[in-house]
C-alpha cells in the first residue's frame, strides 16, 4: 500500500502502540509475580514497581521439603502423561489417518465431543472410577485423569498431521518391505517431529498446571502436585498469608514452562499449522 511519509510514521506508531498495550496486558501479571517474589516481609504490601532483589522467599520455599516433593510429583505426572498420551495418540493417529475403516469420522467426532465436557462435570464419575481402580491418592490417578483431556487433542492433531504426509512415501516403505510398525517408527515418527513436540509440550503444560483434579484425587501432602501445593502454602500463623512464598513458588513453577516454550517455539508453530494447509 502506498502511503505518505507522515502516514507511514503514524502507521508505525499505531502498530507499536498497540503492541505495547498487548504486551503490558499479558506480561504485567508475570512481572508483578516475579517482582513480589523478590520482596521480603512487609515490603510486599508497598506498591513499588521495582523489585528489592531479596531472595529469602526463594530460600524459604526451596528448603521446604513438601514443595520440592510436589515439584518432583508434578514432573513425574506431566512426563508420564506426555509419554503415554503421545504413544497412544500416535497409534490411534495411524489407524485414523491411514487405515480405511467404517466409523472413522464418528470416532473422530467422539474424541472432539469428549474434550468439550467441562472438567467439573466429569469429576464425580471420574472419582468413582479412580476409587474403583484403586488409584485414589496416588500419582496414577492424575496420570489417568489428565489423559482425558490430553488424548483427544493429541489424537486430533496427530491424525490431521498423519493425513498430510504423502501416501507415496508410505507405499515406498511398503515396497521396501516395512511392517506397519516399522513404517510408523522409522518413517512417520521422524517426519512428525514438529507435531510431536507441539502436542507433547501442550500436554505437559496442561498437566503441569492442572488444579481441580489434583485437588480432588490427592489426599496427602507427599502426593500433591505443584499447583495444589502452592495453594496450600500457609504462613507461620493463621493470620499471615505468605504472599512472598507463594509468588516465589509460582515463579519457580513457571520458569520450566517458559524455557521449554522458548526452546521449542519454532516447532510449536510449524506443528500446529502443518496439516492445516494442504501443501
Amino acid at each position, binding site marked *: 500500500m502506498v502511503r505518505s511519509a507522515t502516514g507511514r510514521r503514524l502507521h508505525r506508531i499505531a502498530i507499536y502502540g498497540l503492541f505495547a498495550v498487548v504486551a503490558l496486558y499479558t506480561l504485567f501479571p508475570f512481572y508483578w509475580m516475579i517482582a513480589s517474589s523478590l520482596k521480603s516481609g512487609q515490603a510486599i504490601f508497598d506498591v513499588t514497581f521495582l523489585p528489592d532483589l531479596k531472595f529469602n522467599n526463594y530460600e524459604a520455599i526451596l528448603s521446604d521439603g513438601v514443595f520440592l516433593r510436589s515439584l518432583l510429583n508434578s514432573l513425574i505426572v506431566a512426563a508420564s502423561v506426555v509419554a503415554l498420551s503421545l504413544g497412544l495418540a500416535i497409534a490411534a493417529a495411524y489407524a485414523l489417518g491411514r487405515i480405511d475403516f467404517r466409523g472413522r469420522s464418528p470416532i473422530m467426532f467422539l474424541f472432539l465431543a469428549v474434550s468439550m465436557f467441562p472438567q467439573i462435570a466429569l469429576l464425580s464419575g471420574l472419582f468413582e472410577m479412580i476409587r474403583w481402580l484403586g488409584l485414589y491418592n496416588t500419582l496414577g490417578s492424575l496420570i489417568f485423569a489428565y489423559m482425558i483431556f490430553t488424548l483427544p487433542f493429541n489424537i486430533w492433531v496427530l491424525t490431521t498431521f498423519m493425513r498430510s504426509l504423502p501416501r*507415496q*512415501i508410505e507405499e*515406498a516403505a511398503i*515396497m*521396501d518391505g516395512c511392517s506397519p510398525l516399522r513404517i510408523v517408527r*522409522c*518413517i512417520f515418527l521422524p*517426519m512428525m517431529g514438529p507435531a510431536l513436540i507441539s502436542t507433547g509440550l501442550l500436554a505437559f503444560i496442561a498437566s503441569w498446571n492442572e488444579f481441580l483434579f489434583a485437588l480432588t484425587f490427592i489426599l496427602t501432602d507427599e502426593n500433591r502436585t505443584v499447583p495444589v501445593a502452592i495453594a496450600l502454602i500457609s504462613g507461620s500463623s493463621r493470620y499471615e498469608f505468605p504472599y512472598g512464598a507463594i509468588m516465589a513458588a509460582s515463579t519457580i513453577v513457571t520458569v520450566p514452562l517458559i524455557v521449554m516454550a522458548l526452546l521449542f517455539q519454532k516447532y510449536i508453530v510449524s506443528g500446529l499449522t502443518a496439516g492445516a494447509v494442504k501443501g
Partner: protein
Amino acid sequence: MSGIDLINVVKRFGALTVIDGVDLAIAEGEFVVFVGPSGCGKSTLLRMIAGLEEISDGELRIAGSRMNETPPAKRNIAMVFQSYALYPHMNVERNLGFALETARLPAAEIRERVTKAAKFLKIDHLLDRRPAQLSGGQQQRVAIGRALVRQQKLFLFDEPLSNLDADLRMEMRVEIARIHREVKATTVYVTHDQMEAMTLADRIVVLKDGRIAQVGTPMELYERPANRFVAGFIGSPRMNFLPGMLVREGEESVLSLAGGRHRLSAHDYAGDVSLGIRPEDLILGGGDATLEAEVLLVEPLGGESLVHLNVGDGRSIVAKAQGRPEIRPGATTVVGWNHTRAHLFDKDERALNPRGA
C-alpha cells in the same frame, strides 16, 4: 523366469469398474509401457501388479506363480514413484539402503550395494545430502537407485518423469533406457506421454477406460493402429481425422469426403467412416488424393513447420512440412496424401483394411 501374466484382471472400487478384464503377458526382460489418458486405469493396473491395490477378479502371475494374495514386499518388485517418495529425514545413503536395512542385510553388503548403485547413477557425491537439498533430477536418480539396490528382477515405474522439466525428462529417459539395457530387469512403465512410450518401450499397451485398446511395438502402433483411439493417441501432433462415406462400386470402394471422391481398393465395409492421416503424411501440393484448403497458420519449428489448414466445414487439419514452406495465412493451397499412408476407421472406430490385406 520373471515374466508377468495378467489373466482377465478386474479392479472395482465399489460399483465403479476401473480395470475391466485385462489380459496381458509380459516376457522376462521386456520393457512394457502402459500409456493412456488420465483415468484410463494405467496406474491402477501398475499398483495391482505391485500389490498396493487388491485385485478384485482375475489372476496375476509373476514368474509363473499366482501373486494375488502375496504382500507387496514378497513379490520381489522394485518400484519408482511419481513423487519419488524419498524419505525426507534420511540422507541419500540411508534412503538407498533402507530396504536392505529392513531386510537385515549385513552392513558391509548394504554399503557395497549402495556405493555401486550410486556410482552407476552418478550420485555417489551426494550420499550425505538430504532429499530436500537435491534437484529434481537428482531426487529422481535417488528414487531409481533405491529400486536398483534391491537387485530385483522386476521394475515398476509410475510416471517417473512427469515432475521434471523438458530437458531433464529427456536426459532421464535416456538414463532409464541405459539402466534397462544394463540391468535387463523386466520393466513396466506407466506414462501419459506417448513420446516416452515410443522411445522407451519394447511393447506399448494403450489403455482406454480400463481396457486394453491395443498392444504392440511402438512402430506397429504407429503404422497400424487398431482403432481410432490409438491412432489419435500415438504420434505427435495428433493424427487428423476427416469424416467421409465409403461406398462399394464393383471391384473398388469409393471414399467420399467433403472435398471430393477417391477411388480405393475394395473394402468389405460400406458406410460412415473417418479418414485418418498423420500430419507428417500430408503433402502440400500433391499426393494420390488432394483437397483444397485455406492456410490458417504456419508454425515454424526450425527444421520443420506445422501448417494449419482449413479444409471446409470449419474443419482444420495440421500438416507437417520440411523447412519453411513459402505460404502465407489466408492463401489457398492444395493438400494431399498417398493412399498407402491413410487410415480408415468404421463407425465403431475400428481400423478398416482393404480386402485381402
